[in-house]
């Protein structure tokens, strides 16, 4: 994973609640054995009309929000299926940060392993951020702050997640550092099989 300290970009706002991973990337695009090329299909049911043309009104199709790297979404983003194709599709499209008042557990776990930073903010902050579509925004991971519309909002990150982003650490390396403890655990464990 590459390290990520700061993102300065345009904000795209998708003010829909409970956006599930079937919307982020529908099942028909899961028929792959690699990770590449999913960005063109992100939100495909919303982004394309029935003829495959771009839905002009959709936020990720309009300028300037089509170049956004920060996505601000309605409450409970990423619920549903565990498909890691969802963060793969978002990052392939160019998104680096998602912000909501609540983000589903598995999606959040998957995102952080792919350099996509999930940020959960309180509902007041969320309400204000939902007004920032198309604005310039800066997300600072060192300071844990969001700068937009002349305002600064602080957010909390789980310390290990922050450490991994700032240092580009792969969590697998963290596990391998504890190989001895894993072996010790295995020798202690009772197994009925």
């Amino acid at each position, binding site marked *: 994973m590459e390290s990520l300290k700061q993102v300065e970009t345009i904000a795209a706002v998708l003010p*829909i*609640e*409970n956006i*599930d991973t*079937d*919307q982020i990337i*529908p*099942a*028909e695009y*899961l*028929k*792959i*054995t*690699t*990770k590449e090329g999913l960005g063109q299909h992100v939100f495909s*049911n919303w982004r394309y009309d*029935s003829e495959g043309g771009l839905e002009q009104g959709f936020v990720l199709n309009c300028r300037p929000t089509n170049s956004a790297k920060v996505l601000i979404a309605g*409450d*409970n983003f990423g*619920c*549903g*299926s*565990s*498909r*890691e194709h969802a*963060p793969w599709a978002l990052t392939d499209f160019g998104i680096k940060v998602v912000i909501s008042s*609540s983000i*589903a*557990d*598995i999606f959040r*776990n*998957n995102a952080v*392993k*792919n350099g996509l930073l999930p940020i959960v903010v309180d509902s007041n902050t969320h309400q204000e951020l939902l007004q920032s579509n198309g604005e310039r925004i800066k997300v600072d991971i060192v300071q844990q702050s969001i700068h937009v519309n002349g305002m600064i909002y602080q957010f909390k990150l*789980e*310390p*290990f997640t922050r*450490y991994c982003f700032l240092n580009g650490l792969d*969590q*697998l390396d*963290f*596990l*391998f550092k*504890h*190989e001895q*403890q*894993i072996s010790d*655990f*295995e020798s202690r*464990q*009772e*197994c*009925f*099989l």
Partner: protein
Amino acid sequence: MVKTLFDKVWEAHLVTQESRDTPAILYIDTHLIHEVTSPQAFAMLREKKLKVRCPQKTFATMDHSTPTSKPDSNGNYVFNGEKEKLQVEQLKKNCQEFGISLFELGDDRQGIVHVVGPEQGITQPGKTIVCGDSHTSTHGAFGALAFGIGTSEVGYTLATQCIPQRKPKTMGIEVKGKLAPEVSAKDLILAIIAKIGIGGATGHVIEYYGEGISALDMEARMTICNMSIEAGAKAGMIAPDQVTFDYLAGRPYSPKGDSWDRAVTAWSNLFTDEGAKFDSYVSINAANVKPMITYGTNPEMAIPIDEKIPESATQQALNYMGFVKNESLVDKNVDVVFVGSCTNSRITDLRVVAEVLKGQRVSEKTRMLVVPGSHQVKAQAEAENLDQVFIEAGAEWREPGCSMCLGMNGDIIQPGQICVSTSNRNFEGRQGKGGRTILASPRTAAMAAIAGKLVGASAQPLCEEYA
């Protein structure tokens, strides 16, 4: 110190404790994999030149991309497309190369991963179980800590048999009273999700307990735990009891002889201690639960069939479904009925459907698919002649797999069609682009198939076995 069921299983699997700066390392006893969420994990192993740490702790099956039609006259499976075929072949290759047991197409153990694990006795109380699939919560019905992971974590588990985890919170859901005979576990879990909301249990492991849970058989308990994720929960758990032990006794991977006795002794300690506290608590009276259906585009948007769509319904969901506020769904035409998925494709589900269909015809306006969860379920249904009931009624009796639950294998509904489905997700486009899903119990689905439209609860006659 008093502990919850979750605490006991969690603590027994800590390789290292969590600290402020680092998560805990949790040991995984059993890893289940399927063809859709594992290929990139094996690619990672190859790229980093890693081995699978404990191949004997991983079990693979094929379910999502597999056809539900019979093989052709040459014995070849007819896939929906090349991509699906490639995924299935890749899984086989990966399992061979890394020494993992695979229940492949044609194997009489193949089926939906969450049906296969329990019926093979691989799922056991007190285990930690992960799978690259959100409905892994199903296995919690046995008192296991079971949850869905992403493909990166599939890779971690293959390589280290561990994943980094922060300790989740706990939620106790007490089910007081008992379900009425015509009300099923599916209705109960839909009522629970409607009550707590689709994100209501985010960050929590749910434990279901109380009279209404103890009274359920294992398949009904699996239906409950299966849909925990639809309330955002990390996992759902039910303390194991005699019902659990009776279910597991004699299954292929269940402990045998002395090991069985020791296992049951250990499993008997898996319950929440008197006085242990959950981080949050919800209660529901099962006696008040009515047959439920969904009207919207997520499982929280559920109502008793005889009630009207609430004023609070969101416009986006109603527009998608083609419904309006304050409208009743009773008598709405139904284009497709799907009986299947890891929620409701087990033998007890099929028995209920057969009971309703017996001597009846599926409406000419409606297509009905019955897709057993596994080959074991299929064989059992055929031994009981349930297949004949389905076929004579005009339903399609198909080969096991996920099928129309998410439509990856070509079993899809058409734009605008309404499908009453026993599966777990009514998200937009889940069963096919533009398709509209109404979640329901097997009984409600079967009734709708005969009538060609949704049938109110009061008009649903009791099955013989209950009457």
